[in-house]
């Protein structure tokens, strides 16, 4: 202890973290990234490392409601946070509207960037349910795809936006309940 400071040892340190609704106390090493913890500790293989410097978007996860690059986030600093990865979006067999739209519009080819794209698109629609074309492009600019040429991804997000608008319009009561 350093005069009231909590000095964590450089060995294993326990971190309390909620991943896709499951709350766990997991031991991590100081030099682990959140990406490594999610893949090795939670089996979330949708989270992938490509550039390792937060530029490409394949490691995107939702941390406390906001998209972040898990490759440059230290696992030891995520104590108490709530993480959602692409695995946590579907309810049973029912895909999330964003996932369903990606399937219908063919928003992927090799699929490597897809989990990051979907997670990013979900947070875009959470923040702004009816984005314009420019807003979609601006928000998704940090997610790279080398196959699709992006148009299918953009149209999938537009379709998901319409789909979410329809669902919320037909179920206003449920939406209010959820807010409470």
């Amino acid at each position: 202890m350093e005069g009231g400071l909590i000095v964590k040892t450089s060995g294993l340190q326990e971190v309390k973290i909620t991943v896709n609704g499951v709350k766990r106390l997991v031991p991590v090493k100081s030099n682990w990234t959140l990406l490594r913890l999610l893949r090795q500790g939670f089996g979330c293989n949708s989270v992938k490392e490509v550039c390792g410097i937060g530029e490409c978007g394949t490691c995107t996860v939702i941390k406390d409601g906001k998209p972040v690059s898990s490759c440059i986030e230290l696992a030891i600093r995520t104590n108490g946070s709530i993480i959602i990865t692409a695995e946590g979006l579907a309810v049973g067999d029912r895909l999330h509207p964003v996932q369903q739209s990606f399937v219908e519009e063919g928003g992927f080819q090799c699929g490597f960037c897809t989990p990051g794209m979907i997670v990013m698109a979900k947070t875009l629609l959470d923040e702004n349910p009816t984005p314009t074309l420019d807003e979609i492009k601006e928000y998704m600019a940090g997610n790279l795809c080398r196959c699709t040429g992006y148009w299918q991804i953009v149209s999938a997000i537009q379709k998901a936006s319409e789909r979410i608008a329809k669902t919320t319009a037909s179920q206003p009561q449920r939406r209010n309940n959820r807010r409470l």
Partner: protein
Amino acid sequence: MKPFTLVTPKTITEASSFLKKHGDDGRAIAGGTALVIMMNERVFNPEYLVDLRGLKPLRYVRLDKTRGLRIGSLTTHRMIEQSPIVAKRYPALKEAFETIGNVRIRNVGTIGGNLAYAEPQCNPPTVLSALDAEIIVSGLKGSRRIQAEKFITGIYETQLKPSEVITEIIVPPMPPKGSCKFLKFTSRSEEDKPTATVACFLQLDAKGVCKTARLTIGAVGPVIYRCGKSESILQGKPLSDQLLAEAADSCTDSVKALDDIYGSPWFKLEVSRVLMLRALKAAWKEVSS
């Protein structure tokens, strides 16, 4: 990445005393968007990381009528970009912050962290220098103010002493008949590091004569450059297209550009000159309308 020990101070004083004690072995971490990459690549291997993220009171954007805009050092780029106060009164600041990296980086990276990182290619130092902002740093002997343009002393080097932590950034009130513009040029993709960034602040008096001009150029060399000669060309004179062109032509006079993959020195200076002319014209148009 090499293993390290994480320290989570509850107050700035605790953070300062720990940083002082460990000198070069310790380093403060805010968002970590730059530091974690450097540690991952083993360019920088601190033994102790002092986690500032827990200091929640340092996250704010406030407008103070007399002192101007006050931004807490742990405010994320995204918070500044989305702040209605910034959008309304300091559009150049919004422009500079919304073009940093991507949404994920802006969700995590902080203004204080960005300044302490001291990378001249980042947008904030250039625009904050043109706005005559002050950086408030706190150490064991109290706090002091540093002018934004003098804060960066070289690539990755600042005026910060080992025990000091940035706490606040203060941007003076935007005067009536005042305008600031920020422009940047990237030679490859939009989120790449820029070849040049320029910012200009113009203030006219009631007769339309230029009262204040502050012109800054970043990204081209190891520090942020202030264009003193161009400023003296503009100040005290009624503005005209010819005068703006004259000022832009000499804006790179005291700038030392580095040769790197973002451009040759000649190219960087030429881009700076063109951007500065565009920024000056835009600011003049706004301030005279």
